[in-house]
């Protein structure tokens, strides 16, 4: 039990996990949070290999999947957040070959922020920098106590680091800006919790900007100006600040301009970095891989002849399904029927649908072809990109009969 494994429960990719196995199953997981344990212990309801809801062997299912993609004029390939980087690269190759719409969950998640980071419009740092240096940490629209349970204990607030030897008690200040008193807000304390109304983020940012410029901050919702000035003072004195941006902030902003303005100002008066609170374990990996390949992070359509990528909001999974511009879909390690509004995702049940996933889910129940794959980080290895952009090597823990998703995608590509 001396070997450390990587947990793929969320994009923190904690690499200090020990496991005990028994009869080729994971018996005990050490150090992982409840979310990670649930992922590592595997599916309660594993997916079966089926074609038209009848059990099939894997080669037949792969041939059928290839046939669907070959015959489709505008197929959609979606998912990727729970796949290794190797699988994602093969998926990009497959999309080029069949001229598919290619998108991932960042399209309705942290996409805009990651794009800005990759284009050097926002200053960022690694999680290890946060642990060693950060003294002021803002959780804005994020509740890591629920979404990334070990964020505070492993990196952002509680641990001691090289320049923060006294840890949370004396060396660090955690601040929470949110629309509700989340569990993270409880840890930050009432003095350091700024409750704003829904959609009030941009206005609060501009008020904070005024306060940082020594002007009187004003908000239409009448937020106590003294408290904003107090917050601005804390931020000014920060030696190494971090804003952990959650989905709450991204959904509230129409565009990222207020965030750019605030970050520019904060970097004028002190030193601030931004950390996107990425959910799925390798969502950022997909953004990196596609950016490298096509120059965009998501929402692309490849031309099957020239392999050129078109990019735009119309090529996002939501718009493609809403406008019914796709005529077949391949979903890898995702459950859009559960995560997207039914008015949009219902269309998936009307077109030939292929799912590759370790577990059964709502999407797989509507699929024409289902192909079970190995559970990433447990039954198959590979590489993944952590929320801060650091590449992490995943190790295989258990053996399985299921093929890794990369292998399945390679076979489908070959069969087309």
């Amino acid at each position, binding site marked *: 039990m001396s070997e450390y494994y990587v947990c793929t429960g969320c994009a923190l990719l904690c690499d200090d996990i020990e496991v005990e196995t028994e009869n080729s199953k994971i018996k005990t997981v050490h150090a992982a949070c*409840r979310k990670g*344990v649930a992922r590592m212990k595997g599916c309660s309801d594993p997916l079966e290999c089926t074609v038209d809801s009848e059990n099939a062997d894997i080669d037949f299912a792969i041939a059928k999947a290839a046939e669907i993609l070959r015959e489709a004029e505008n197929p959609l390939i979606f998912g990727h957040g729970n796949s290794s980087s190797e699988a994602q690269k093969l998926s990009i190759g497959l999309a080029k070959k069949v001229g598919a719409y290619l998108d991932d969950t960042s399209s309705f998640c942290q996409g805009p922020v990651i794009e800005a980071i990759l284009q050097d419009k926002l200053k960022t740092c690694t999680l290890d920098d946060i642990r060693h240096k950060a003294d002021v940490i803002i959780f804005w629209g994020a509740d890591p*106590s629920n979404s990334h349970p*070990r964020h505070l204990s*492993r990196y952002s607030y*509680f641990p001691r680091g090289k320049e923060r030897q006294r*840890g949370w008690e004396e060396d660090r200040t955690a601040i929470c800006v949110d629309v509700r008193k989340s569990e993270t807000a409880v840890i930050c304390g009432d003095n350091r919790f700024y409750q704003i109304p829904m959609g009030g983020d941009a206005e609060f940012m501009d008020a904070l900007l005024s306060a940082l410029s020594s002007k009187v901050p004003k908000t239409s919702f009448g937020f106590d100006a003294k408290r904003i000035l107090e917050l601005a003072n804390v931020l000014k004195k920060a030696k190494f600040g971090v804003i952990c941006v959650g989905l709450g902030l991204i959904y509230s902003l129409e565009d990222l301009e207020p965030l750019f303005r605030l970050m520019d100002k904060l970097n004028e008066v002190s030193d601030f970095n931004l950390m996107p609170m990425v959910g799925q374990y390798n969502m950022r990996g997909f953004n990196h891989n596609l950016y490298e390949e096509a120059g965009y992070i998501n929402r692309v359509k490849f031309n099957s002849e020239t392999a050129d990528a078109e990019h735009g909001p119309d090529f996002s999974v939501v718009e493609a399904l809403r406008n019914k511009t796709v005529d077949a879909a391949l979903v890898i390690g995702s459950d859009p029927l559960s995560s997207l509004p039914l008015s949009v995702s219902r269309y998936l049940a009307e077109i030939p649908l292929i799912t590759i996933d370790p577990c059964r889910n709502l999407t797989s129940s509507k699929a024409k072809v289902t192909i079970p794959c190995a559970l990433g980080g447990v039954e198959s290895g590979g590489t993944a990109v952590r929320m801060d952009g650091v590449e992490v090597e995943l190790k295989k823990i258990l053996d399985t009969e299921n093929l890794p998703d990369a292998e399945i995608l390679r076979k489908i590509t070959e069969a087309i």
Partner: protein
Amino acid sequence: MANVMEIYQLLPKTNCKECGKSTCMAFAVDLLARKVSVDDCPPLVNDAKYKAGYEKLSEMIAPVSGVTDTGLIVHEDKCIGCGNCVVACPVNVANDPLGAGSGKAPTSDKVIFKVEDGVVKARNVQECRRFGENRILCVACIDTCPTKAIEFV
């Protein structure tokens, strides 16, 4: 965490002595220390007018299973395994500065808290600062728990 006056307010306050204690306040003190259970107060259980008090108390006083020598209880149903207590506990930090103290999985056997299967497990409780001759009222693990899964009785 409940305090003795909160508990007392929910009791019948009749000093009927049916529970064997001399006053309701004495019963409240013992209830807080988990020496008795809510069901040990017969009027509270049987009399319909105390039903609301009974229900509130039953919720407030979680079952006593798993109490350690220092009175530490981990409510496993509430714990999410975030490990805040593992990293915040001063004893963990002193005994394992490069493991638990630095945010990583504990590397020493002397730590008090360890996360196992997504739930924190308490061990070596004799090392806890609330125990022994020089005990102090340390609240590092309680204050840092987002779900209030740790309690001292």
